[in-house]
């Protein structure tokens, strides 16, 4: 087939982009070459709309071993150990086929981690669905949860934390973001940079089929009426093969045969081979007849663009082929020498003794398009004037019941009980807490991880929203006693070609950057997912932040369940009564306007670091950060988990009771301490100028809010746990 502009447009390229390809090649590309360009230059692989802005993120730090640019980020956790981690989206495939879409998302992110030599030790996920009333929501939720569990459970990697939300803006475009942490020795990290001439290029794993051809382009195109036609591009995950691939790769990695290794993710063989060549400033030659294929008569085009899962590309040291093959044979996996590194600096493909493609690697990578898209700055919304009378009319108990049973606050046990969260025998904090925590096998250390997002805040004011999620991630780590180290981010937005959506992106990224810089919480990896929209309407901007922290002595880990009667409960950080954009305002007053709560980075840092210091001194019996749903929600969850009650003190604040209990001011935590430690704890807080107040005392089985209002813990629990169970029946 002759390539022309129309075919280029059908491949999702723009007219100028097609011209640029012809100019760079000084000829018209053939179809295989065009396919390669379209895969490499689409949004998903080239980051053409986001690169300019991502550059501004802080990516360096004392603990950062590898920042963005590799398969995953790597941080130092001392004693020669390192954690490899990253988050990635699989939104569009999951909407089309929730089980397989979510499963292959989990499979993909695990490969990104073990391709660097790390054994995955924990999975997390951030999943967002449309309104519970929407007719598709229930099946999508069930399918996604089964898919995540189906893959992760089979791999034997515990899923230790996650996040789930419902919002009608996801009705036609759900979000599925998967995150994995892996453990590696600092001196045994593997990278994707090829080196040396005439080194064998090896294909291992599953065979190549016609899966997801154009999947990467699908991820870069928004949903429209024609979605049905895109169905056949869905891939089926094979977690069993991935488990074998993991073991085989780690076995090979234990030796010294590998020069470079790279998983085949989006754009399969194309992006993996080109990335390795590009990083090594080399050429690569592949004989496509050698690629193990599942179907007969696959064309070079199909082989190069297939997104079959569970495959890896390796550049080996010469003479190590036999040894490597033995390992893959043992694990019953395909192994083929398909090419070699060259000094041509081109990617050259051969098929049936003919050269079917010849492209300079730099044209695909360095010369890929980069856009400075138009974007609109958002205006800070005006504060709402909520009348005191409106608030005074409400009964606290009624509000509490509604808030605790709200779909975005209620217990997600129905979900995480379907994830194996205890396999590997090191999970010391299960899902349901502020962060999941796993021990580093055989040591006293543990790592904590959490994944967060707040689309509502980001939608109301992207800059503040961006800062807020980073701050929330930081708080979630501190609440379990972990020192925050670094984050990964998955940026889910609408179309970058829409100025409003692009504005949301730019400002969220700016917010994320400011907060992570201030908190010394650098970004080490991530992923951008644009075109999350139905027709012209984008989703609410939803950056997900995955934070990772270290606990030096796992025995000092903190949990959120109230521990002991007569202990004192303190609130750290000031409650100002910011109600706009709170869950209370949105779901009970049905008030959707106004600014999100302000994020004061000085307070965040100071409050968090001071709390960490108090934890290190063993004064904290339980802790929990205050987030969605405000102070009373936070305390309720601590009561439910600990099966203990609380008697609140009369509070001295000048604000209304409802504002006090349900506002979402940032930088706050609830802590439990022993009465005899009060003085010492206060001293530390005062010395660091951390605002705090004593809010109550732990009692047995009921929550006494004021003279008139009491709730039993069983009631609290039923408010909180019933919604999702009932909904999924």
């Amino acid at each position, binding site marked *: 087939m002759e390539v022309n502009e129309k075919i280029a447009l059908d491949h999702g390229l723009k007219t100028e982009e097609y011209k640029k390809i012809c100019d760079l090649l000084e000829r018209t590309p053939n179809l295989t070459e065009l396919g390669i360009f379209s895969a490499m230059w689409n949004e998903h692989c080239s980051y053409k709309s986001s690169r300019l802005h991502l550059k501004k993120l802080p990516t360096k730090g004392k603990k950062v071993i590898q920042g963005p640019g590799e398969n995953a980020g790597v941080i130092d956790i001392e004693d020669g150990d390192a954690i490899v981690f990253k988050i990635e989206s699989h939104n569009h495939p999951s909407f089309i086929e929730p089980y397989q879409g979510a499963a292959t998302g989990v499979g993909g992110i695990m490969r990104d981690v073990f391709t660097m030599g790390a054994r995955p030790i924990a999975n997390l996920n951030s999943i967002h669905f449309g309104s519970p009333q929407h007719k598709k929501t229930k099946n999508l939720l069930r399918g996604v949860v*089964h898919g995540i569990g189906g893959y992760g459970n*089979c791999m*034997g990697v515990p899923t230790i934390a996650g996040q789930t939300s419902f919002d009608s803006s996801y009705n036609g475009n759900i979000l599925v973001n998967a995150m994995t942490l892996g453990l590696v020795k600092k001196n045994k990290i593997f990278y994707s940079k090829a080196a040396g001439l005439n080194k064998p290029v090896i294909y291992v794993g599953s065979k190549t089929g016609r899966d997801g051809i154009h999947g990467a382009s699908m991820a870069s195109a928004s949903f429209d009426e024609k979605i049905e036609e895109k169905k056949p591009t869905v891939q089926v995950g094979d*977690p069993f093969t991935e*488990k074998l691939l993991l073991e085989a790769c780690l076995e090979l990695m234990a030796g010294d045969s590998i020069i470079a290794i790279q998983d085949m993710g989006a754009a399969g063989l194309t992006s993996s081979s080109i990335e390795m060549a590009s990083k090594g400033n080399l050429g690569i030659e592949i004989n496509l007849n050698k690629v193990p294929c599942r179907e007969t008569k696959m064309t070079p085009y199909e082989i190069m663009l297939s997104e079959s899962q569970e495959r890896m590309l390796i550049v080996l040291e010469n003479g190590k082929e036999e040894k490597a093959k033995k390992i893959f044979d043992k694990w019953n996996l395909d192994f083929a020498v398909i090419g070699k590194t060259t000094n041509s600096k081109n990617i050259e493909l051969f098929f049936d003794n003919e050269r079917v493609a010849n492209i300079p690697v730099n044209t695909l990578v360095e010369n890929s398009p980069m856009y400075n898209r138009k974007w609109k700055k958002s205006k800070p919304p005006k504060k709402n004037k909520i009348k005191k009378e409106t608030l005074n009319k409400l009964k606290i108990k009624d509000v509490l019941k509604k808030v605790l049973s709200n779909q975005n606050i209620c217990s997600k046990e129905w979900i995480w*009980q379907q994830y194996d969260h*205890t*396999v*590997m025998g090191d999970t010391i904090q299960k899902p349901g807490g502020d962060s999941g925590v796993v021990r580093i096998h055989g040591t006293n250390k543990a790592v904590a991880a959490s994944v967060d997002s707040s689309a509502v805040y980001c939608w109301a004011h992207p800059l503040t929203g961006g800062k807020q999620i980073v701050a929330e991630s930081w708080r979630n780590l501190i609440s379990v006693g972990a020192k925050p180290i670094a984050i990964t981010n998955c940026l889910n937005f609408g179309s970058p070609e829409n100025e409003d959506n692009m504005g949301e992106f730019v400002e969220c990224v700016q917010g994320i950057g400011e907060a992570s810089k201030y908190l010394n919480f650098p970004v080490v990896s991530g992923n951008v997912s644009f075109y999350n929209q139905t027709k012209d309407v984008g989703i609410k901007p939803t950056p997900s932040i995955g934070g990772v922290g270290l606990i030096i002595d796992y025995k000092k880990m903190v949990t959120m369940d109230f521990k002991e009667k007569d202990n004192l409960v303190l609130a750290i950080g000031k409650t100002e009564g910011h109600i706009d954009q709170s869950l209370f305002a949105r779901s009970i007053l049905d008030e959707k306007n106004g600014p999100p709560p302000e994020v004061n980075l000085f307070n965040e840092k100071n409050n968090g670091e001071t709390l960490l210091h108090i934890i290190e001194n063993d004064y904290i019996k339980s802790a929990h950060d205050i987030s969605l749903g405000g102070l009373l929600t936070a305390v309720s969850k601590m009561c439910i988990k600990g099966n203990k009650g609380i008697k609140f003190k009369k509070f001295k604040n000048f604000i209304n009771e409802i504002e006090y209990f349900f506002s979402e001011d940032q930088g706050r935590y609830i802590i439990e301490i022993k009465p005899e430690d009060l003085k010492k704890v206060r001293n530390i807080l005062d010395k660091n100028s951390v605002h705090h107040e004593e809010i109550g005392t732990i009692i047995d089985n009921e929550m006494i809010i004021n003279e008139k209002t009491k709730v039993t813990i069983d009631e609290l629990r039923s408010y909180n746990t019933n919604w999702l169970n009932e909904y999924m029946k």
Partner: protein
Amino acid sequence: MKSSVITFPGSNCDRDMDVALKKFGFKNEMVWHDDNELPKSDLVVLPGGFSYGDYLRCGSMAAKSKIMQSVINFAKSGGLVMGICNGFQILVEAGLVPGVLLRNKYLEFICKNVFVKINNKDNPYFKNSDKDVFEFHIAHNEGNYFCTNDQLKEIEDNNQVAIYYCSNNGKTEETFNPNGSLNNIAGIFNKEKNVLGMMPHPERMIDKSLSGEDGSLFFKNLINNIK
């Protein structure tokens, strides 16, 4: 005491079991499914996981692997063989214990703590156990024990039920049945009681920082009984 843990392709609790056995004094060896010979052992363990991806039927393909012939011979000669979770499914498929394990009643994977009541202490696994009710951890998709009426009668006549799902104080009622198992059965023996298959994972409960410590009691008791 010597133990062997078999690794099948897709096993994923093999390391956890190795750690647990060693912690309580076993000299453990890992054995590859494709080997022909078992090393000399006092206990052979088929660990949990997803052998062969749980494809076809859980445990069906692992039951046909090379090493299983030696395991079967070992069991037939009275050797102790314990299958946990997927290991239980393999035992069933290999015909070493009666019955089958079907999909959980609500078709959902379940990962949580449960209580189990020991039904029979006249065997090396539970002899001398101080407790009658253990808090154990389960994590499975196919733990719904089923057998025919005739088989059930035989199992009961021979006192082959090892543990039942129950409440924290030992009530074996349907409410405490997590997966739809026949009569709340969570684990069974072969006739001779040297082979035990059970769904719960004691190896995930060997440290108070984990889901609990009743697994420690189980292993301590086990090694003392074998000595």
